[in-house]
């Protein structure tokens, strides 16, 4: 079985899980306050950011700080629980497929879900920006090239974080610990982005990317710049380490 069809199998397992309902609900809750409070975007002269940029960045700040990582944890729970219910994992392990491949296919689906969630947020952003433009008679819409570049950056920077969440889900057998550790690890990311060691904390990466973008767009508000040099090697190292360990540990409890 090649890798693409394995991803197809993993995707098929989640198709009927109604996870999309939760994703839609989350994005609607994310953007509704932005539309309702759209007049606040005009009072940001002190920061020196234009109303349309502020509208965009505030929504994505709220998304990357809590919603996006938390929903990703829910998806890891979904993936692991789907296999454990009625011992589905035993049937998967009996197939002539290497467990490493199986583990990576599941991780690929997780990365795919991250992309879907971000794209849904972009879609809802355009809808809500159009509604806000209509209410305020001011053009809130930003060029798609810029919006998609930001979305792509969030997605790429979230991969190390997803690898850590996947490691937690695979290695910690007790569900409350894998969920609790994951959720608790999101909370300090607000503090971590203000320290010099932000690049060592994968859970803060997407939030850091958007915060530093905020600093770039707001003339009078400075935030930390992205330094690619300690960041990229550290992120690559963390991702590789997490994926290696999770591939080694995947299905080990069931094979014993």
């Amino acid at each position, binding site marked *: 079985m090649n890798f693409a069809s394995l991803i197809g199998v993993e995707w098929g397992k989640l198709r009927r*899980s*109604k*996870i999309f309902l*939760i994703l839609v*609900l*989350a994005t609607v*809750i*994310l953007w509704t*306050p932005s539309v309702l409070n759209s007049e606040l975007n005009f009072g940001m002269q002190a920061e020196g950011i234009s109303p349309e940029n502020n509208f965009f960045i505030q929504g994505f700040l*709220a998304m990357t700080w*809590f*919603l996006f990582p*938390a*929903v990703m*944890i*829910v*998806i890891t*729970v*979904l993936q692991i*629980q789907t296999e*454990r*219910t009625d011992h589905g994992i035993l049937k998967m392990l009996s197939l002539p497929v290497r467990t490493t491949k199986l583990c990576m296919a599941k991780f690929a689906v997780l990365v795919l879900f991250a992309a879907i969630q971000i794209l849904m947020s972009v879609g809802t952003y355009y809808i809500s920006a159009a509604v806000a433009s209509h209410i305020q008679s001011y053009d809130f819409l930003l060029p798609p090239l810029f919006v998609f570049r930001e979305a792509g950056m969030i997605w790429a920077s979230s991969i190390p974080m997803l690898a850590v969440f996947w490691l937690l889900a695979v290695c910690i057998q*007790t*569900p*409350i*610990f894998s*969920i*609790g550790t994951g*959720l*608790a690890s999101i*909370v*300090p990311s*607000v503090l971590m982005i203000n320290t010099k060691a932000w690049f060592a904390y994968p859970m803060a990466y997407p939030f850091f990317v958007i915060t530093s973008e905020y600093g770039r767009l707001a003339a009078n508000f400075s935030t930390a710049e992205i330094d690619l040099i300690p960041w990229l090697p550290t992120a690559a190292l963390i991702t590789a380490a997490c994926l290696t360990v999770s591939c080694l540990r995947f299905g080990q409890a069931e094979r014993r």
Partner: protein
Amino acid sequence: MIVSLECKKLKRTGFKAAFFGGGILAAAVPALNMAFRSEAYLSMDAPPVKILLNANWQMMAMLNVLLIVAGACILYHIEYADHAIRKMRTLPFSESAVFFGKTAVLVSACILLLAIEAASIFGCSVHWFGPAAGLYREILKNFGFFLLLMLPAILLSLAAASVCRNMWTALGTGVVCVFAATMIPAQNFALSLFPFALPFRTFSDLSGSAARNYAIAGAAETVGAAALAILILKIRRSFE
């Protein structure tokens, strides 16, 4: 009887350890904050408990609410995994008795959580601000208020967990509710009555009448959530 049964079922799920660990983590927040940035807080002119809670409670409350959601999911997950709930239904307990047994367990876990946090606030305030008269009373009042405002969230997340056969549905709903709570502006009283937003309010930051309003709202929502949970369980029972 039902509560001791629930406690027995929680063995090896890591429930107690998770709440204990969560409490330690939340307790570390004010201690670390004071250790690194004590000058900024020591120069403020306000009662120590108020300074400490203003600086740290948002993060501590976030940890508390997330633990409540995760704990509620686990409490019902042990029933749905391997169809244990079917065996429970054959026992001479009503389903709402099981629900309130679980509520009692989660409330006691939250009391443990709040006790650890209160000890940390007490320690920080004595260590950095020096002993003060009436500190016990102030802390007890604040944490009693927190417990009352947590009850609606506890009951509702348990109700969600009891409805959802799959743990991730309850967890997803809980996470979305917590996120909605973080988006609610504190100035808007009507919106801040959202059950998952209540645990973020602090007693020392509110005026007497506002605190009373929140306490009444917390009590009313607790009764409402309990009634809703009983109703949901009854309706579901009649369909299964």
